[in-house]
């Protein structure tokens, strides 16, 4: 059996997936580092689930390569899955089994379960593993789904809409679970529509649109610096074309003597240009991940 040969949990290179003439994912490049919580964002139909299912070898790439810990996702699919925990979006479980029986079954299929950790998770998530899954609410089924994904403390967790159906208290516990995995040096690849959640737990986020990667942004420490909105008042309105030439500036609007711009990344050139025009007032607005999402997807 092949074993882990590299420290890079996920490396996607020039990956494409087509169905007939429809291109679901187009030349995607991604890299998830060890110990990183990586958000994967995009509207419905953008190619998120296709990418996740290809990582797990449910789907075969039409082009390109997906490596998990240095192993090919197709050729070494079985060996790779020793180190992966997976929670599907809209997860389907066996209704006739209890949570405990499901964990036993998946352990029988090769997962190296830490049973003390299973007990701990069931206590923290306040879910009984003795009840038949078919009798549980959607939220409680989601908790069983989370337990089966985390129960072997995998080096790579792949989570598709992990907090769907969870109440705010349980979401908080889930965030703690993710951060604990991160502190163990494990990596988490999470697809979510909940932008607050991504902003809360992720180190980095990739934005995908119509199957193409449009941006990868750092989030945790330096996100606040990556996108800002400035409103500037001038005694006399300057030539707007000077600001349009600045690469980091976008979304320029003018209202009499007031200028509003969005600056992405380094602000030094914008500030230098601004200082040449004696501004009389300057205000800065922090931009949320939601603003960033809207910026990428509104057109």
């Amino acid at each position: 059996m092949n074993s882990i040969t590299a420290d890079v949990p996920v490396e996607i290179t020039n990956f494409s997936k087509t169905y007939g003439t429809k291109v679901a994912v187009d030349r995607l490049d991604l890299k998830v580092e060890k110990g990183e919580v990586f958000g994967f964002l995009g509207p419905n139909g953008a190619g998120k689930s296709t990418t996740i299912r290809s990582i797990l070898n449910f789907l075969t790439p039409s082009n390109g390569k997906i490596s998990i810990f240095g192993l090919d996702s197709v050729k070494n699919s079985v060996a790779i899955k020793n180190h992966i925990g997976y929670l599907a979006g809209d997860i389907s479980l066996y209704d006739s089994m209890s949570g405990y029986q499901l964990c036993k079954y998946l352990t029988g299929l090769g997962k190296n379960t830490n049973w003390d950790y299973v007990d701990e998770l069931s206590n923290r998530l306040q879910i009984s593993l003795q009840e038949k899954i078919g009798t549980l609410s959607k939220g409680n089924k989601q908790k069983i789904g989370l337990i089966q994904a985390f129960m072997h403390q995998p080096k790579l967790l792949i989570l598709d809409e992990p907090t769907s159906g969870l109440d705010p208290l349980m979401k908080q516990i889930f965030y703690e679970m993710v951060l604990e995995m991160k502190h163990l040096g494990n990596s988490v690849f999470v697809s979510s529509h909940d932008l607050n959640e991504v902003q809360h737990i992720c180190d980095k986020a990739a934005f995908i649109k119509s199957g193409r990667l449009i941006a990868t942004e750092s989030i945790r420490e330096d996100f606040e610096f990556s996108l800002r909105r400035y409103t500037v008042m001038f005694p006399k309105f300057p030539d707007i074309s000077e600001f349009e030439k600045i690469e980091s500036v976008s979304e320029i609007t003018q209202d009499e003597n007031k200028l509003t711009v969005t600056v992405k990344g380094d602000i030094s050139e914008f500030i230098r240009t601004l200082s040449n025009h004696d501004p009389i007032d300057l205000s800065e607005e922090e931009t949320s991940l939601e603003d960033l999402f809207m910026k990428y997807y509104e057109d």
Partner: protein
Amino acid sequence: MLNYIFTIHIISRWKNIVVWSASMFLLALMFTGLYDSFKGEITDMIDNVPKLMEAMIGPLPKDAVTPEGWLGLELYGLLFPILLAVIAVSAGASAIGGEEESGTIELILASPISRGRVVLEKSLGITAHLAIVSGFLWGGIAIGSILFPFDVSLTNVFYATAMGWIFGTTVAYITMSTQALKGRKGLALGVGSGFVGLSYVMMIISGLLNGLNSLKYISLFNYYDGPSVLMNGLNETSFSVMLGLSGLFFVISLYGFYNRDVGI
């Protein structure tokens, strides 16, 4: 023992298995019990059967007044293979198709297990399912031969039951291979049922029209031929043909499931 796909496959179908097994057992008891009352009329019944009817139920046993002939006429001629075919088509389409339809296949394939093992254990599950149901038919006849005046060769009954079992397994694997190749349970149900229907029509046509007699070689019912086995013992050639077909369609299932996208 909740450790293997095979075990879960059997457990998840226990109601189906119990119902069909009980039905087979009761059918067997009923026909063994009725034999004594009808044995005087069997020759008249055979003499009055129209040719079309004979083509539909297969060649009638020459020695139908014996318990083996009675079973061939009433149970193993058509009823047993058709019932097994119904079970087999359903089991073959839903073995992997049911997991795909419900989405639980993702739980299995996210585990460190090869797709080949999934196909293997599901195939074993189908085979065991059909063996249990068939076994209860044999068990019913065995019990009936004790309870009623029914002096039958249980060895030949076992062989005829085994022919039915391998017939059902072949039908199930043909159905499963369609699902494994295309990922569509409905299509697999159609192909499996269509195959059984076409096979039956081939048998009828080959029995009615001398010029088309060779059509019987493409009918699975020709290889099954339970009534002859009851009279003459196991037909190794026919058994081997169906075993070989089962093996072929198992390999096709492996190939199909290995080379197809799952969970689109």
